């Protein structure tokens, strides 16, 4: 199992959610963050002064997903969140060692990190 972390524009969040839904990924956890990329924010010129607005609101979406479907999730997000302008965001994939569903108290990941099999057994 892996964890996909995507940082996207707030106004693109609905589109991303829909894109994931369409491909059958309903599970997700989201929260609001502030961030900036390599351009180090936006510059506003103002009567000679320049002010740099460096941390802009973004939404962070986390999706835990089986290894073999990571590519689909990344693609869905990438397409839906794209505008082509600076600030579109990033997607990162992290390894997950174990996963549990609290309601059923079962372990739910079939594999360990990196798709290479791993310490976890199939829970359900």
């Amino acid at each position, binding site marked *: 199992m892996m964890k996909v972390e995507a940082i996207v524009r707030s*106004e693109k969040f*609905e589109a991303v959610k829909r894109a994931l839904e369409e491909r059958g990924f309903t599970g997700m956890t989201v929260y609001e963050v502030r961030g900036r990329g390599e351009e180090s924010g*936006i510059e*506003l010129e103002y009567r000679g002064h320049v*002010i740099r*607005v460096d941390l*802009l*609101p973004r939404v962070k979406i986390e999706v835990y997903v089986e290894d073999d479907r990571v590519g689909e999730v990344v693609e869905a997000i990438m397409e839906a969140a794209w505008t082509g302008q600076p600030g579109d965001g990033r997607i990162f994939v992290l390894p997950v060692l174990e996963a549990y569903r609290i309601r059923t108290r079962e372990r739910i990941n079939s594999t360990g990190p990196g798709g290479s099999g791993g310490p976890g057994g199939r829970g359900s």
Partner: protein
Amino acid sequence: MGELDGAATAWILAATSMVVLMTFGVAFFYGGLVRRKNVASMIALSLISLFIVSIQWAVIGFSLSFAPSMGGVVGGLDYVLLRGIGMEPLEGTSIPGVLYAAFQMAFAAITLAILTSPFAERAKLTGFIAFGLLWTTLVYDPVAHWVWGGGGLHSIVEGLTGATPIDFAGGLVVHTASGFSALAVALVIGPRLGFEESHIPPHSIPLTMIGGALLWFGWFGFNAGSALAADGLAGNALLVTHLAASAGAASWALASWSHGRPGSLGMISGAVAGLVAITPAAGFVGPMDSLVIGALAGLASYKALAWRLDRGLDESLDAWAIHGVSGVLGSILTGVFAREDIGGVPGLLEGNPSLLAAQVVDAVIIIVYSLAVTLAIARLVDGLIGLRVTPTEEYVGIDISQHGEEAYR
């Protein structure tokens, strides 16, 4: 000069304070409806309206509105810098002249505040200030003069229809003028970035409700204060104002209920629609009439809002749908429901169709004038200074880009 009436003065002192508070009511009502990155700006636009219009009023606005007429078009310059306005009552009133000027000043200020709606989340500060000063001078002041200042519009309408149009507390002057002007501004300034793609949700319903509370409260000063006396007419105005607000809230709630869930924002919007519609009527109709007027206003503004959303029109906070539409509706319904035993003027239901005609003609003239002049002013300012920030600034938010502030931490 009239004689000073202490009781009237006591009430108008309170009423003026209440109407000033209404401008903050608009600030919070609108402030809650925008995104958090623009809330300080949205509040600031109303605050700016309050202080620039007040200064303009003292310098020239009161004179343009209420000084002896220059050819029926606009007031003369007799009261420039409030010359001659003192502690004694002006002719025909019984409150101090300074207080009369202050009461009317509060009306002028809130009118521009209402008109900040289409500037929401995209206003360039310099552009708004220039627009606001021009608009108050070229639209508000003449219209106030025509309707209340002894200006010539009414004699023209009277010539056409045989009746003098009536506007108790500003259904046309304040609400219709600002509402239709908002429409004109929306056409010039264009929709917010992202408006077409996705619904832009309000960031704080409680803040909007606080604004709504101050509006409802202040409106008693607005309407019952317009009696300029502490008498039965003021009492009537207060009662019908409250009932129209209640009926507007109820009818909007029911209308939205039939399509989904009745939201709290809908209820308070309906209340404001009812308050707007009763404004021209408050000194002319009775309590049961006001329930009907308020209920119709709630429905009309609800429909108008749905219509402008359908049309993809980003008149963002619905000054047009609520103030414009219900302002006109209320003015017309005043022609229907006016009762001789309340305000001395019979309406259609008492067998006097000419009042209705006068109300319609008056409304049409003010709508056309507001739309035309506002379009011209907005285009002019947009060309010279710009009404709107750059896309980058809009994206970052007006609070940071125009005010250098973050509203919440």
